[in-house]
């Protein structure tokens, strides 16, 4: 089966090349969509600091497919099927010295492979649902790909102490380690013994509610891939946090209900990758929080997120029955596809290869046809049985 799919995929690539002169990656039948597995992680790492849920510079937000489709002040973010005409590609391809270059020259730049992945995704139709072969490997040139596997014996040592350890995803060497089950008896001795061999593999770590101190933070300081660290509900103070130093990959830090205060401000500001800081009921003053919030790319939650504002209030309801009764029955769409034959090839459709167009779910025989349809729906007629 596998080789048959491989062959079919290869043929599809050839067909697509002939059709549109673009190196369309071959569709796959399993796995997450390329957008979610490849494209969105790149955007998260490189773009969302300024174009995300919290900030939308230039009117552009890229944190959800809808936001991405909406574009910004410069118009559409991309043109599906045409990488060269896409604004985000143009910006990334500009020279670093060009004021329009994105990301700005003082920010971490995407790798060549990452730019290529975004281009290939747009060229293939910029589908949020399609799965494209060949893109995974290009984009996984991230640092996480170079982490060596921990030995099963090292993992067993944690499990033996009822400490949770699990790869961050299937096939990855990076680990999520959580001391929740044994927090009350987790001290420096236990944490050091279990974590010392996993310095490189530790990516997400929770020591919440534990009794660890400075010694454990000294070890964490040497973890090159530590991305998320939860120190909630511990006795840690500024002098202990100082031992953490500046782990270069640390993006999320939770110091909720600790004694970390303003003496740690300079250190927190200097954490190079820090994007989110949770500091409710820590020792940080209002001025300290304001200073941190002024730092670019850093979201600080100190338990003071305002309630959603009321923007409009309805008058107390009054009833009448003077509205005209509508005569045209509204369409009642369903989530099932409206067609059984592919509008592009005329072949029977795949139930799981669909997109929504004009409020209808339309099915296709393959991802290539789906991308083709998406490029210009007006060229095709969807026959409903």
């Amino acid at each position, binding site marked *: 089966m596998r080789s048959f799919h491989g062959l079919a995929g290869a043929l599809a690539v050839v067909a697509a090349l002939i059709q549109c002169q673009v190196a369309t990656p071959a569709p796959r039948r399993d796995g997450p969509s390329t957008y*979610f597995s490849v494209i969105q992680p790149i955007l998260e790492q490189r773009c969302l600091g300024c174009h995300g849920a919290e900030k939308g510079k230039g009117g552009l937000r890229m944190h959800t497919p809808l936001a991405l489709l909406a574009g910004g002040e410069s118009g559409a973010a991309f043109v599906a099927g045409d990488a060269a005409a896409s604004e985000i590609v143009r910006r990334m391809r500009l020279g670093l010295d060009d004021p329009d270059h994105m990301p700005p020259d003082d920010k971490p730049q995407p790798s060549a492979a990452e730019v290529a992945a975004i281009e290939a995704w747009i060229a293939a139709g910029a589908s949020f649902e399609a799965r494209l072969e060949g893109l995974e490997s290009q984009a996984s040139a991230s640092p996480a790909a170079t982490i060596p596997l921990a030995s099963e014996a090292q993992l*067993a040592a944690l499990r033996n102490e009822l400490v949770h350890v*699990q790869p961050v995803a299937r096939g990855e060497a990076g680990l999520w380690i*959580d001391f*929740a089950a044994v927090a009350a008896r987790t001290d420096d001795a236990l944490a050091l013994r279990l974590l010392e061999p996993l310095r490189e593999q530790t990516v997400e770590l929770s020591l919440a509610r534990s009794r660890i101190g400075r010694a454990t933070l000294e070890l964490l300081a040497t973890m090159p891939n530590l991305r998320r660290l939860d120190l909630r509900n511990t006795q840690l103070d500024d002098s202990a946090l100082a031992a953490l130093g500046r782990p270069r990959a640390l993006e999320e830090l939770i110091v909720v209900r600790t004694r970390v205060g303003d003496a740690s401000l300079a250190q927190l500001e200097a954490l190079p990758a820090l994007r*989110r800081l949770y500091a409710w009921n820590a020792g940080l003053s209002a001025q300290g929080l304001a200073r941190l919030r002024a730092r670019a790319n850093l979201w600080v939650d100190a338990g003071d997120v305002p309630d959603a504002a009321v923007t409009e209030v309805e008058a107390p309801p009054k009833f009448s029955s003077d*509205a005209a009764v509508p005569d045209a029955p509204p369409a009642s769409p*369903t989530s099932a596809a409206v067609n059984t034959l592919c509008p592009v090839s005329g072949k029977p459709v795949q139930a*799981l290869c669909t997109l929504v167009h004009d409020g209808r779910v339309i099915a296709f025989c393959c991802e290539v046809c789906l991308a083709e349809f998406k490029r210009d729906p007006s060229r095709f007629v969807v026959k409903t049985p």
Partner: protein
Amino acid sequence: MNPIQQHYLSLTRRRFFGTAAAGLGAGLGALALGDVLGARAYAQGGGAPLGPHFPPKAKRVIYLHMEGGPSHLDLFDYKPELRRRFNQDLPDSIRQGQRLTTMTSGQTRFPIAPSVFKFSRYANQQDGVWLSELIPHTASVANELCFVHSMRTDAINHEPGITFFQTGNQQPGRPSFGSWLSYGLGSANANLPTFVVMITQGQGNMQALAARFWGSGFLPSEHQGCKLRSGSEPVLYLKDPTGIARTDRRKMLDLIGALNEKEARESLDPEIDARIAQAEMAYRMQMSVPELTDFSDEDDETLALYGPDVRQPGSFAANCLLARRLAERGVRFIQLYMRGWDQHNGLPNEIKLQTQAVDRGQAALIKDLRRRGLLDETLVLWAGEFGRTVYSQGTLTESNYGRDHHPRCFSVWCAGGGMARGVSYGKTDDYGYNIVENPVDVHDLHATLLRVLGFDHERLTYAHQGRDYRLTDVAGRVIPELIA
């Protein structure tokens, strides 16, 4: 993995846990095989969970199930036009031959009952969302909520409706959502069950809740939900009887465990392994549950956030706080059932009591998770099994009406866990009767939730009776717009 190999591995693992020093050699002998072979990924099988297919946005779920079918028209789906259609008949062009329950199919008229409740618009990440005066606390976190106004289901009665939402199938017998996650993700805290269920008694008409709603179906039974009772003793018989020391209990379990292992070796019945695992879990829960349910380490600020009900065990507020405590202890799937939304008659009064019971607690849960840094990785889902009709069941007056079951459209909301923040998705017609934009099936919702949990819903499968089963059966479409 070969089942026999798995069997022996599970035995060595058990010895390994029971007597760490003595078991070390044997345990590692089997486990280190992957290193010798130069593995490129961590070993799977042998009791280890599958793990997510790709990096998850959410690590756990808190599912607030509203048993009975809350009225979308009085809570979330704002239809001001209906105010001018009071007591008009529901047009056939809207009903479109929709089947009704026997509770209203005999009615001679189907008079439109606009909501008596006032709505206000709350700012979110889009152009705001209109919400009812019944839920002011929930509305205060509108900027976190992802509303689906175009939910639909195939079932029109509670039993199949709840079963469909929990298991992806209207007929009983399939594993519930929580069991699938337990199977797929495994436990993150070996001292607590992976899947915990808590029930709050409602204010109105209540339907029976069967334990199979949190059953594991054909999955191994250690994946079934563990129900915590409301009241002073969350787990019955958890305390050792007077005169029995904890060491005595240990000896007893070792002896029974040895007998069970002997039987498991001979019969190769996986349910015996589940039995051993559950006995060991109960032993560990003797220590972990009293600590879990003791709120004395919560500060006054937190208790005040959940409101006065939080001091009453079993209330929805208390269960919300317990849900947060379970979440921070690593429990994967926490399900709260709130009974009593089945408002066939006297809806305006009953829904007031019902929303008073849930509103403050559920809003507090979201705020509390958020400020502790847990909301990003905890997915909260609020959903009933269906919505309620726009026409009145029974007599309609300006201040009173009832509503029957309505599966064609209703509203659910999610928060946190990588779902889109502060958005509304899908639209219903002016009557709140049919979907006009972006319908979402139960399978679509399941597929989307599994996706943020790191799973491709088509590949989270279990072989049973000759075929691979999944939570989404043979359907389901991930809805990208719902994902952050």
